[in-house]
């Protein structure tokens, strides 16, 4: 019998699949078992990086499915400011698998957070689970609660009627309510809505078991609501901006991304309707040597985003992946971070506000 | 067009004539630029100006903007008061003058026993009747516009007290400080505000008064005023709201044009107060206390002289002080 490795394709061998490849033709994917076209409804959720996917889908004429639509006669600037079309519904960024699970539990009736709304000094009411969805908060508790009801209805409709749901896993570190375990997208009172109170909120870093378990539960809920649903998981390649763990942020990033990558892998193994897209590998592989990161070694460059999207469409829609990303051949690191200003990122806002509030 | 032109000419001649007649009597009642304009009317106009005047109106494009009114209220009512220097002009109320000049409002304590007495003895027996039987405000009152406010005719005793109070050296120097001239009282109004839950109307709504130059306002509390008694509120230049609580006898003096203000609607307790209007007094004239009623304003500051024979007038109003009401 010959060695089983002899039967493997080139993609299984580092030299052929990576070392001999150029940055622009390195493709860490095998052919996907899922294909969709313009007629399928594609929904998405996840961390900041997930917004690149939703925008790319819209730009390429795919049916980016939005169930919580903006009213007519608002400007694109207003749409964006009020969180319309950033994702398929106005849930804002979903960073952790527990956050996704709780969204599904809230939408399908199983969970009602005890501490969700916060009123500022001007009487404006904020939804702590999507703190930036209305820039100045809601005008009243009544409006906040009525809007939430419609939002959850839109989430239900989304899950029940979409064909594909793309979820980008972002973080394992999170802040939870000590009352009932509600998980918040950001730490309440740190640069966004809310008021930090250590008797009410606790830091938690999800373990691999928790991350995997919560994700599996969320998938079960979604699939129960829509048995035809196909799910694509990706892991955000963006490193942590900061960690609450008492260790180096680089270690914390490695932990977080490893756990998320394992959770995604576990779901692909477990469920036939779950697929993986390797955005993490496209951006972070050693062949690139950080070429797709900007000078801050965290922000993904437009070229990196373009390459990831190119491969995404190549594998899931059959679009050509041959065309190299033209700008990938230009200098590896741009002089300054080129960050798309249209990405709505609670996490970045949080750290910007944190930096601004630090005593000089 | 010809008829209109004739009317305009006649109007101008009448105006000019009236002013010339007043001038001949030694009055200076017309501003210099007006006088210049009117004098020019009786002289031949320069040819170029005549040319402009005679141009047909239809040729000129319509002006779509409006010029500011020449008789607009001043932005603040104490423009001619020099900046007060307490070192140069010592005064018992120096800090109050400085406070008024800075903020447009100050509170001065007066005799609380007297104020408490007037609260009991004054008759708040009339409605605030802004609806009158004639549109020029000369008619009898027809109906009140709110049941939550009551007024009355101030008694002779109250007017005498106010006369004595404001003639005193402290207040004389206070008014000279805030106005730049001595003051007199242009109106005294009793106001009783009853507690109510509905939104305030009239003086209980946010407003500014558009008082003429030199005219400032006062409110003398006849009772302690806390948050439930409908305290005076004003907004400063930055729009921040301030509430002025007070004790019986506190006199609040404020620039009602400079400050948006209101007597907030009392929620639980009745507020009794005397509403005062202060206006400049010519040097050499005596302090006067005028009472012109709830809804009236002295129409012309030159015409508010009281008859000299005060005693006879007092008789005429059955023991009350002189009133224009």
């Amino acid at each position: 019998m010959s060695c089983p490795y002899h039967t493997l394709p080139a993609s299984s061998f580092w030299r052929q699949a990576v070392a001999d490849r150029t940055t622009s033709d390195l493709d860490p994917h095998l052919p996907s078992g899922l294909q969709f076209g313009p007629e399928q409804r594609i929904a998405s959720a996840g961390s900041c990086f997930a917004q690149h996917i939703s925008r790319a889908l819209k730009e390429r004429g795919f049916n980016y499915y939005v169930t919580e639509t903006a009213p007519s006669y608002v400007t694109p600037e207003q749409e964006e400011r009020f969180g319309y079309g950033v994702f398929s519904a106005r849930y804002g960024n979903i960073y952790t698998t527990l956050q996704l699970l709780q969204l599904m539990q809230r939408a399908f009736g199983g969970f009602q957070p005890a501490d969700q709304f916060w009123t500022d000094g001007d009487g404006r009411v904020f939804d702590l689970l999507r703190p930036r969805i209305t820039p100045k908060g809601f005008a009243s508790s009544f409006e906040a609660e009525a809007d939430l009801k419609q939002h959850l209805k839109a989430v239900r409709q989304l899950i029940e009627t979409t064909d594909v749901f793309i979820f980008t896993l972002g973080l394992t570190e999170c802040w939870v309510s000590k009352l009932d375990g509600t998980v918040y997208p950001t730490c309440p009172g740190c640069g966004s809505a809310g008021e930090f109170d250590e008797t009410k909120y606790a830091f938690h870093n999800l373990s691999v078991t928790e991350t995997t378990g919560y994700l599996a539960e969320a998938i079960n809920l979604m699939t129960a609501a829509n048995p035809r649903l196909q799910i694509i998981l990706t892991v955000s390649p963006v490193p942590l901006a900061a960690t609450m763990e008492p260790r180096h942020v680089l270690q914390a990033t490695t932990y977080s991304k490893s756990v998320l990558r394992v959770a995604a892998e576990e779901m692909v193994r477990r469920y036939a309707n779950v697929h993986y897209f390797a955005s993490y590998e496209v951006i972070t592989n050693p062949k690139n040597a950080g070429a797709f990161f900007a000078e801050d070694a965290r922000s993904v460059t437009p070229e990196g985003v373009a390459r990831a999207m190119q491969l995404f469409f190549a594998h899931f829609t059959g679009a050509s992946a041959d065309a190299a990303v033209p700008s990938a051949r230009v200098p590896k690191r741009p002089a300054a971070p080129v960050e798309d200003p249209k990405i709505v990122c609670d996490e970045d806002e949080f750290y910007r506000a944190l930096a601004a509030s630090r005593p000089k | 067009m010809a008829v209109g032109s004739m009317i305009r000419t006649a109007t101008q001649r009448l105006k000019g004539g009236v002013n010339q007649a007043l001038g001949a009597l030694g009055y200076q009642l017309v501003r210099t630029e007006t006088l210049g304009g009117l004098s020019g009317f009786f002289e031949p106009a320069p040819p170029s100006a005549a040319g402009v005047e005679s141009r047909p109106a239809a040729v000129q494009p319509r002006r779509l903007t409006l010029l500011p009114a020449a008789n607009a209220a001043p932005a603040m009512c104490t423009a001619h008061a020099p900046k007060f220097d307490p070192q140069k002009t010592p005064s018992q109320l120096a800090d109050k003058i400085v406070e008024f000049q800075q903020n447009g409002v100050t509170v001065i304590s007066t005799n609380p026993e007297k104020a408490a007495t007037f609260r009991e003895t004054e008759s708040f027996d009339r409605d605030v009747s802004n609806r009158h039987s004639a549109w020029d405000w000369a008619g009898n009152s027809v109906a009140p516009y709110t049941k939550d406010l009551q007024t009355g005719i101030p008694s002779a005793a109250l007017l005498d007290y106010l006369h004595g109070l404001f003639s005193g050296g402290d207040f004389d120097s206070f008014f000279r400080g805030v106005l730049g001239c001595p003051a007199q009282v242009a109106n005294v109004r009793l106001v009783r505000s009853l507690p109510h839950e509905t939104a305030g109307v009239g003086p209980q709504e946010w407003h500014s008064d558009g008082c003429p130059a030199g005219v400032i306002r006062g409110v003398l509390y006849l009772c302690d005023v806390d948050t439930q008694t409908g305290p005076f509120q004003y907004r400063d230049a930055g729009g921040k709201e301030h509430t002025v609580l007070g004790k019986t006898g506190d006199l609040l003096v404020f620039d009602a044009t400079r400050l948006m203000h209101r007597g907030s609607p009392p929620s639980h307790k009745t507020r009794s107060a005397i509403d005062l209007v202060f206006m400049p007094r010519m040097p050499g004239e005596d302090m006067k206390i005028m009472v012109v009623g709830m809804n009236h304003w002295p129409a012309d500051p030159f015409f508010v002289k009281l008859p000299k024979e005060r005693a006879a007038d007092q008789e005429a109003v059955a023991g009350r002080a002189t009133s224009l009401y």
Partner: protein
Amino acid sequence: MDTEFETVLPVYIVGDSHSLPYKNMVFREKWTGAFVMAHTKYIPGITAKDFYNPATGEFHPDFIAFLEYEGLVRNGRATHLSMDEVDFSIAKAVGQAVRPPLIMLTIGEIDVRGPIMQLLKDSHDFVPPFPTTLPVLDKPLVPWDLIDEAIEARLRPFAAGLEHLVRAGFKRVYVQSIVPPSRQEARVKELQSYECPVTVRTKLVQAYNWKLGAKVRSLNLVMVDRWNDLTADGLLRPEFDFDGVHVPPKGARLLLEGLIDDAIDSRGLVANHPRYELYYQMACGLNPFQAAKSNAT
């Protein structure tokens, strides 16, 4: 001739087609028995947004034309005691009005029915920041802040125009609140080519009036509002629905009576300001007649 003519109180009503129900309206008001007569001007299509241009300080040409036609403005200046006279007596002797005229603007309904209502149509509802008896429908909600921005965009130039009018001496300007919208859904669809439930339309008008009232009050002016008289159960009473858009003359009469109720309480801040200034200066020991000369030296 010694015939004494009864005086008539004119009220100048100008704006969009909601000025039309006041046309030729004459009645005796209840307080003094005086005749009130509406002088109306319909400016087709005028909206709150194009009533006044804050950038140029110019009003809608038809509005200025109306003021000039009625003799309220001459050469860009208000004619009531705005001129050179410093004496009420002289003004009265020449028959000049000393008090600002009563003017009511009927502007804004087109703004509500047009661009603002487009946000909602029949697809959305909203929750206003004030109490209302009207329900929230089971529809996606437009955030109040977006409605607020849409109303604000239309109201801002209008409020700037009101402020300019006040500066020009028109201190008795009233603004008619937008009247409650029709219950006739079919008629409304026919008029505006899209549907919007009556509760949503009514709530939107309430919201517009809520903001309009606040702006008008901040200028010491008054919004004429008879909402409670015109509605039953929160919606327009059918007897006040003239044609699916306007109130009938009897509704307009109610509103005009509301204006009169307020106007009789208000002197329009009448004071002879130049003359007070003169007096104040003299009291301060200044010589107002030599001011120009002393400045020149």
